[in-house]
């Protein structure tokens, strides 16, 4: 582990022109923005991602950053990229409404209004918003807003309520993508290719967000598979930025696309395969 400020300066000195996207978590984001704002040489070469898990709206985020001791001109200097994840907004919405999800259409409409309001509040606060991350996988296309049903990638009806939420949330992100394009046509939209971190015995895992222990994709595999595959959403949606695991493969994909060739979309990540056969791969010396 490396101190962020020292490490960033080292990298920027060694690689002039580098842009660093700092991914900050939840309640920590205001503190990071405040600290970064006092380091203008890093502000000008960086973007800060923060999540819907953190501030409830733009006004609250601004006051949290101010309370964390930001430089007076932080709004002019710190480049921000809000990251929209639906779950925290849904939790807050139903807590505010004091009801459980019940009617699919009404729930969907209420939730979409909440998502849109969150985004608008970030845009209206005078922040230097340089993009918005909408991490969709495309599975939401099968989600029916009126019935609240969906079909999985194999065409079977989704019955597990948790998985159905994946589909609903993905549908919300698809609609949000369209909303952002219409409402903020010059705003870049970010996505991500998120590979698995380790695979063993044909099971794929991500590092857990708290203790880093492997957490199986498990029943969320439909969504994670889409996230993990270079090119999967790139060809179906209009993204400006992709934060990519498997960076070389993403470029390879682009190079072929420029030549009219759509490569097979593969989610494999040989660097993370613990049980991969290496018999056919020469050892490095």
């Amino acid at each position, binding site marked *: 582990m490396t101190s962020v400020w020292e490490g960033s300066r080292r*990298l920027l000195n060694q690689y002039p022109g580098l842009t660093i996207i700092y991914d900050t978590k939840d309640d920590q984001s205001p503190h990071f923005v405040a600290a970064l704002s006092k380091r203008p040489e890093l502000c000008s070469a960086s973007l800060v991602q923060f999540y819907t898990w953190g501030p409830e709206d733009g006004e609250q985020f601004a006051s949290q950053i101010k309370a964390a001791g930001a430089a007076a001109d932080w709004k002019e200097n710190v480049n921000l990229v809000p990251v929209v994840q639906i779950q925290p907004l849904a939790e807050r919405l139903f807590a505010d409404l004091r009801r459980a999800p019940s009617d699919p259409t009404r729930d969907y409409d209420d939730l979409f209004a909440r998502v849109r309001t969150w985004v608008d509040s970030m845009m209206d606060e005078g922040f230097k918003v340089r993009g918005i991350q909408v991490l969709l996988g495309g599975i939401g296309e099968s989600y029916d807003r009126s019935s609240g049903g969906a079909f999985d990638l194999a065409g079977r009806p989704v019955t597990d309520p948790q998985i159905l939420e994946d589909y609903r949330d993905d549908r919300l992100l698809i609609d949000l993508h369209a909303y952002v394009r219409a409402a903020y046509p010059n705003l870049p939209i970010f996505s991500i290719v998120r590979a698995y971190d380790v695979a*063993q015995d044909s099971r794929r895992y991500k590092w857990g967000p708290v203790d*880093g222990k492997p957490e199986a994709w498990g029943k969320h595999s439909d969504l994670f598979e889409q996230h993990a595959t270079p090119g999967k959403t790139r060809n179906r949606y209009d993204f400006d930025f*992709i934060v990519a695991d498997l*960076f070389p493969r993403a470029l390879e994909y*682009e190079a072929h696309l420029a030549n009219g060739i759509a490569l097979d979309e593969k989610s494999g990540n040989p660097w993370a395969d613990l049980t991969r056969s*290496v018999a056919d*791969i020469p050892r490095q010396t």
Partner: protein
Amino acid sequence: MKKPQRLTAEVRLTIVTVPFWPLTALQELRSSPNHISREQLGWSIIPEHHLFSSAMSLPSGTNAFDLLMKHSPPFLLRNFRREPGLVRYAAHRGLIKAPEKPDNTMGAYRAALAFGARIIECDVMKCKPEMPGGSEPGFVFCHDRSAGRITAYSSARWEDLTVSEVEDLPIIVRQIKKGAFTEKYWVTDEKASSVDICYDRH
């Protein structure tokens, strides 16, 4: 940036009582009974060309430099605007080459930059302020909220540790069996933090 100073009695006490410190940390870990070889860890050894889906499979006529400049350009934020149809890429958590260069290490970041990326994405975690009652926290590069996956010394949350407590720790990769960590680990050469920071220090 000026190094944080370790001035208070409390901090000195911490230094004395916790066997963190760092000149022998690597040797200590590598002589631990829990230290295993890279082979025992079970990660494949993947040649560089397997970074691509098939060996060096860029279409003929593609100039790799132009490709990189187009899709991961330097000085991104100068005249930053969207260009419909053009997708730009950032290397997520660096260019991970597990187990030697785990995610969010200086080695992974440098691997991405050496490959030609000029946009990288880094996870950051907040630490405790250096001074008791201090206002500005430090930050480290890490995906997880706690230190347990990547260090052998502490499983505490980063928010309960100061940067100066953790900055020199060697980064480990834990052995995984049946989808869970064992007590065993392999110590990487990733102590870039100490290299970077010691470089400044001296």
